[in-house]
């Protein structure tokens, strides 16, 4: 069984960079890292391939400046190889443009299953995976909190407003996973060493045959700091802090 995992390399959320109000962009510093929410898809893919008795996990990613540090993390977990699309003309790409690029890259492989996170940690548009599915002509199941596969069908527990649905879908298909789906492994030392020699195929928009077909129909007009809530009073509990809470609830007429 061959599984493609869409992964995003993002600025470290602990150090997301600063705003440049002039350029209306985020000034990002430092290396990109593997989006935490993608580790679940990588782990799920490795387990499904294992359970199927063989196959490959291929990473597909789009990032500026041929950035590979996040991909190496996923390769160190055990993925076989990666396709990376990097092109100056993709700067400021919206979700649909990203989906077109990812779909074109995925077409170069022949996956039984495409996995992605429900949304990225930095942009969280949450639409890219279904846009990829539509462009590839595949069915999709989003918000998986459990996945089983028998070679021709994927069975998913999909989160819903009320609880969850058991959904069955023939392969090939696109499935998005939540952080609850599996516990990702940490890369081993051996995995980290092996990852260094694994193939990362670098592709441009032209390589994908998408030259001239990408146009972004939206623009950012402004980036600004939100009006922050002010921190109120902070008290150290000395055994009677609950009285302060009750006073406040009383004043707010909640009790």
């Amino acid at each position, binding site marked *: 069984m061959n599984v493609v995992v869409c992964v995003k390399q993002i600025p470290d959320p602990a150090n997301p960079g600063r705003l440049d109000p002039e350029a209306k962009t985020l000034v990002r510093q430092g290396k990109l890292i593997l989006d935490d929410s993608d580790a679940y898809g990588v782990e799920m893919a490795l387990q499904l391939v294992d359970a199927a008795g063989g196959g490959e996990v291929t990473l597909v990613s789009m990032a500026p400046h041929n950035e590979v540090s996040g991909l190496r993390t996923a390769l160190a977990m055990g993925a076989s190889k990666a396709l990376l699309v990097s092109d100056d003309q993709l700067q400021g790409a919206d979700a649909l443009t990203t989906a077109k690029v990812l779909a074109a890259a995925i077409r170069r492989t022949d996956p039984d299953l495409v996995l992605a996170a*429900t949304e990225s940690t930095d942009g969280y548009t*949450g639409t890219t995976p279904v846009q990829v599915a*539509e462009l590839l002509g595949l069915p999709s199941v989003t918000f998986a909190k459990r996945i089983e596969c028998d070679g021709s069908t994927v069975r998913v527990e999909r989160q819903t407003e009320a*609880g969850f649905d058991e959904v*069955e879908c023939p392969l090939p298909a696109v499935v998005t996973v939540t952080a609850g789906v599996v516990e990702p492994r940490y890369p081993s030392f051996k995995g980290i060493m092996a990852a260094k020699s694994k193939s990362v195929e670098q592709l441009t928009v032209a390589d994908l045959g998408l030259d001239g077909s990408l146009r972004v129909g939206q623009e950012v007009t402004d980036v600004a*700091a939100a009006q922050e809530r002010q921190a*109120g009073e902070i*008290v150290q509990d000395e055994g009677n802090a609950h009285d302060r809470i009750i006073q406040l609830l009383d004043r707010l007429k909640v009790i």
Partner: protein
Amino acid sequence: MTFDNVWVLAEAPEAKPTSFTYELLTKARQMGSTVEAVTWGADVDAYAADLGRFGATRVRSAGDLGDALPGVPVAAAMAAAIQGGDRPDAILFPQSYDGRDIAGRLSARLDLGVLTNLVDLSDDGTSEHAIFGGSTIVRARFTGDPPYLFLVRPKSFAALEGGGASPEVVALPVPDTGPLNAAVIKQRHVEARSGPKLDEAPVVVAGGRGLGEASNFELIEELARLLRGAPGASRAIVDAGWVPYAYQVGQTGKTVKPTVYIACGISGATQHMVGMKGAKHIIAINKDREAPIFSIADLGVVGDVHRVLPRLIEALKSRS
């Protein structure tokens, strides 16, 4: 930018429109001169009048979808109508499970961009998006031709009645989508919870990793019960399996705007804050003085939830 005809994706599980749907209809009414609702289900006639009360003058129904997930058939039906000449200027989608699927599918099908995670939309068509847990606002706008697709976060707009007569219900035919629509719901599970609904309760008491272990969530439930509120949870303890997903507050869970939000043992990851920073008043209890949650709390208690919560519960019981 003026919007003439605005469509709203109207979700109505169990034949009752969600409050989210009413928020979007209210906004659509302020934006455009004509508001139409797009919906699906076996009982559309039973709730069409409710959609009318909030401003829909026409309801387009994709009908009973059976065991299909709504994403593919509803998007395909909307795309067919739009390609057939019924072009709205804007479509408002709820940023919900199915809302995201439908908007994403429609976007790719019609080669139209989509702006997501909206928290506001001004008259000139400029949208506002909160990123980094709400600390940063990005404004954006479409530059191409309509229809413009907007995915809106819950509780971004008030829900106010203001419609007229019952709307006409017209069919929104679903074209054959072949293998795209092959996913089938085999069984639906409802995870029951008692008390007021999490996203409508005036008081929310939420627990996080600081509770230490799953059994301590009982403290959260008891405090919520005493305050006639709803219990909620951070993503960490939902992922750990302590409580069902329906309790989750945050970017991927519920967005809540209660009068009082009490965060117990929650550090305040951006993922969580984006779902609760709209609360009128925030009380936080956490051992770590440096926890980000204290930066937005009206009252922050630096202390152990295992000590503070039992005393708070006892004190409330002795008052009643």
